[in-house]
């Protein structure tokens, strides 16, 4: 469990980091919280020649409010998300999700930027940032760009991120009176999602659903938005029957995987159960 030899680089500025990444873009990995990368290195499933530790770059660990949005630095940890008063107040779906991630040790080290960049198909954060219509800031040799969450993930551990780009920030909306919730089925309390569901609902005073956003993780090669289900809910009063109908639509056109934690059939069913329960949980939030 010793990684193969690599060159370790700990830049003190974003520019320095990007310059180094660009110079070694063919064989380099970025180390953020290390909760996914370190196991891969130790099991030698990944053997990059260069590691860029972005932990010493200043100003990537703040949460700020800006024009009705919140901006989280890429180095913000799950624990910081869980314990942020600002997020609890303005974007509770993030802490609701973070508290479900792995265990305390992982949450103390793992970062939101790392989680998104890693694009694990069973990661919790991807479902949530999709449901929040978040935007992701990537900085590379050609400067910065903002990518919408729905455009970010391409597949199993793949995203639109170039090897020399760093996720420096995530922009999420202030969700105000929206109802939100995150529910996850996992083999154990600290396990990866067999299915994870993030829900954000905007209801008008008559309890009619004006907008529904449902992000799902763990059941296919990447997190996705359950658009068929969302459409069913939108413009309607939410009752148990409608919620169940929408839940049954949540996997339409999705190629549901199977592994040791569940067959395609079971996971599909479980997703329907969890979508319904997550909507109910959100309504009660």
């Amino acid at each position, binding site marked *: *469990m*010793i*990684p*193969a*030899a690599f060159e370790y680089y700990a830049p003190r500025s974003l520019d320095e980091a990007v310059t180094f990444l660009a110079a070694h873009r063919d064989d380099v990995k970025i180390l953020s919280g290390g909760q996914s990368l370190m196991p891969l290195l130790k*099991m*030698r499933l990944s053997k990059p020649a260069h590691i860029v530790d972005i932990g010493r770059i200043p100003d990537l660990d703040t949460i700020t409010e800006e024009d009705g949005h919140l901006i989280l630095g890429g180095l913000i940890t799950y624990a910081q998300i869980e314990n942020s008063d600002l997020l609890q107040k303005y974007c509770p779906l993030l802490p609701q999700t973070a508290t479900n991630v792995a265990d305390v040790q992982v949450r103390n080290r793992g970062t939101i930027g790392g989680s998104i960049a890693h694009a694990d198909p069973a990661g919790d954060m991807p479902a949530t940032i999709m449901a929040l219509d978040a935007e992701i800031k990537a900085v590379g040799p050609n400067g910065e760009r903002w990518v919408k969450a729905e455009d970010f993930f391409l597949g199993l551990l793949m995203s639109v991120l170039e090897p020399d780009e760093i996720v420096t920030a995530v922009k999420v909306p202030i969700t105000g009176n929206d109802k939100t919730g995150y529910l996850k*089925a996992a*083999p*154990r*309390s*600290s*396990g*990866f999602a067999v299915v994870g569901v993030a829900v954000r609902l905007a209801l008008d005073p008559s309890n009619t659903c004006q907008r529904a956003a449902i992000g799902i993780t763990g059941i296919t090669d990447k997190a996705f938005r359950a658009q068929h289900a969302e459409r069913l809910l939108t413009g309607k009063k939410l009752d148990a029957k409608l919620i169940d109908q929408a839940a049954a639509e949540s996997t339409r056109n999705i190629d549901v995987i199977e592994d*040791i934690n*569940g*067959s395609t*059939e*079971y996971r599909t*069913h*479980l997703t329907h*159960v969890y979508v319904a329960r997550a909507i109910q949980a959100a309504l009660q939030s």
Partner: protein
Amino acid sequence: MDNFIGKRTRSKEGPRHVTGRGLYTDDFRLPGMLHAMILRSPHAHARIVSVDPGEALKNPNVVAVVTPQDIKQTTKPFKPGRYAAGLKRSIDEYAGATEKVRYVGEPFGAVAARDRGTAEDALEQIQVEYEPLRPVVDVREAMKPSSAVLFDELGTNLAWNGSLSYGDVEGAFKSADRVVKENLKIHRYSSTPLEPFIVIASYDAASKRLTVWVTAQVPEVIYDGLREALGLQDIRVIIPDVGGGFGQKIHLIRKYVVLVSLLSMKSGRPVKWVEDRSEHMMAGGHACAQEFEAEMAVKNDGTVIGLRFKEYDDVGGSISTLTIHFTNKLNNLSNTYRVRNIALEGFAVVTNKCPVIPNRGIGKPGMCYVWERMMDRVAQELNLTPIEVRRKNLIQPDEMPYATPSGNVYDSGDYPGLLQGLLEKIEYDKLREEQRREREKGRLIGIGVVIAVEPGGRNAARDMAIFPEMKEPPGSGGVNGAKIKLEKNGTLSLHLGSPNCGQAHETTTAQVAADLLGTTPDKISTSIPFDSDLSPWGVAAANSGNNFHLYDIGAIHGAATRLREKVLKLAAHNLQVDPSELTIEDGVVKVPGSATKQITFAELGRIAYNNQHLIPDDLEAGLEATYYYTFPHAKPNLVPGAERLVRAQFTFSAGAHAAIVEVDKNTGAVHVLRYLIVGDNGTVINPDVVNGQVFGSAAHGIAVALGEGFIYSPEGQPLTVTYLDYGKCSAAETPRVEVMHRPSPSPWTALGQKAAGEGAAIPSPAALASAVEDALTPFGVKVCDLPLTPEAVWRLANHNPESERRSY
């Protein structure tokens, strides 16, 4: 005398372990020590065509490599043990594969380098050419003539088949009102100790002396294994603190000790090897997957008159533990029941999976599973309650000692009392009422009640019962030593024959010795590590949880009693009284009531080692005693005769378990609401220690039932090589276990003590199965197979017959 026995005392080893000050094998660093990695097969089944370490050896920091050729040329195969004795043709098993690999992770070489990272690099640089062979993964497929064969010498994968029959089984089935049949299955799992295998080997070529530090449970296996494989005579085995054993560290670890020793012999340097978690999960040994075809002959009133079953054991890619899960059925073959006619037939099938090893209960959880599932089934078929059926068939307290049909003799126990105590504790009738009410509201609550014996104290001749052709036993009964010494300052030191794997040997033995010698546990230190140069042999106890009570406590009791006699004799001589006039209190030997006639242990210590003039002529100088214990009531049936009657184990603890669960029909998730045990572990020496064993073993059995286990792909690739995938319950999922003691002390052990190690791991899988089936009563389904993963339970609850989504 009972100042400490039976009481909670301050733990002697606990503070060291919880403050990170334990000394485990990995904590030792020797000057010039190299670091090893093991060369393992990535294939389930392949022929090794060639192994070329040339590239790796180019690195000057790579010091030694062991190849299959080295293994073949410089070592000898291990002597076939008692679990391989049934082979028609003997098969050589070396420390590593020499021609063929038979499971993913099978070792066939090793490399040592100046640091661990370089050793890992070197491992990747060793060029191995394989000729992959067809993997054999499924037991039933493996038995077909069309299957590939693991051992060409055998020509079949059915490596052993045999049967045993006690009483008149045919007659019982003929006279039965009804025959109840069921096929049952228990899966592969293990206890996955937090500390994996670790070895340090240091060979001194000048003296031809090999010293090994190893995290092993049985020093004898290491000692004998090294002698057999390397032909060495001068061997020293040191076992420091052990981070969990559970049976995992008895058997397979000897292979690695030999491989690491070979590296030390080749390099002339000490070599350390620390196994990775994933290596341990793929190759450290698994409990056997067992399939049963069971039949019970019953009378309409619920009386069971006969049991017969076939057992198919998936023993993995080695023959060295071929029959271990089958012969262990003899330990609890009768469970708690008065059934006189029992027959069993075993099929030991080799497959391209990790070899099976003894693991907490070894086959006994399977035997208990058969009994307790079948008892529920009988109740269902006869429309009786599961409690009635059990009560009807329990051995009664006035029948103790009770001779079972296979030759076991139960020493003591009140099984109806345990069951009754449990039912009262859980308020069974009220609970059933509550269950009915909740069911009407749509909640699926289930109650499972089971009962089991926990056999303790090994008899090494047991396995002869299935090998009648064996001329002499490979061992019989058990012998176990302890040494006790009164030091010059009046304190005492103990040397045990078995290493401490976390079961509080130091605490418990000090309590016993303190009471026998009239001193306090804080004046007694138990020597850790085990050191074969200094410690007595502990061949019987050898750290298996169900042997400590009989063999180690027996040996300590004997040694302390012997030392007490010496102490009294020396004191009497110096006080000029008769020994019978003396008592010992708090380390002072005295004539009760006299202010002057007393002498302290410290004073006696100074005399015993310094002052010949004050030592009586008929007393050996020094104050030290060694005692080797054997069980004094081991006969009859110590060795099986023509009837195959054998005492498989010598003491019989027991426990009644209740699991109360809630099943989520929509997800299949099982939530354990309550778990209760009323246990009989005989005289409890330390309630904290015994409860610790009960909690741990229950937690394991519950996790086993609910989904922890090893899964293989159809190609024989292990899919569960990290804790993330393996599915062990964490603290969050483990229910609180409520324990009540109702001891029936053994009349045959020194203190009335009985076993408490495997304990709750034996009945808890059956309890969970029973509870889940009970919860699913509205759907009329049967629980036959473990594990009860959420998907498996969901399929049961939703009448989905496709419960076998995986063919492996």
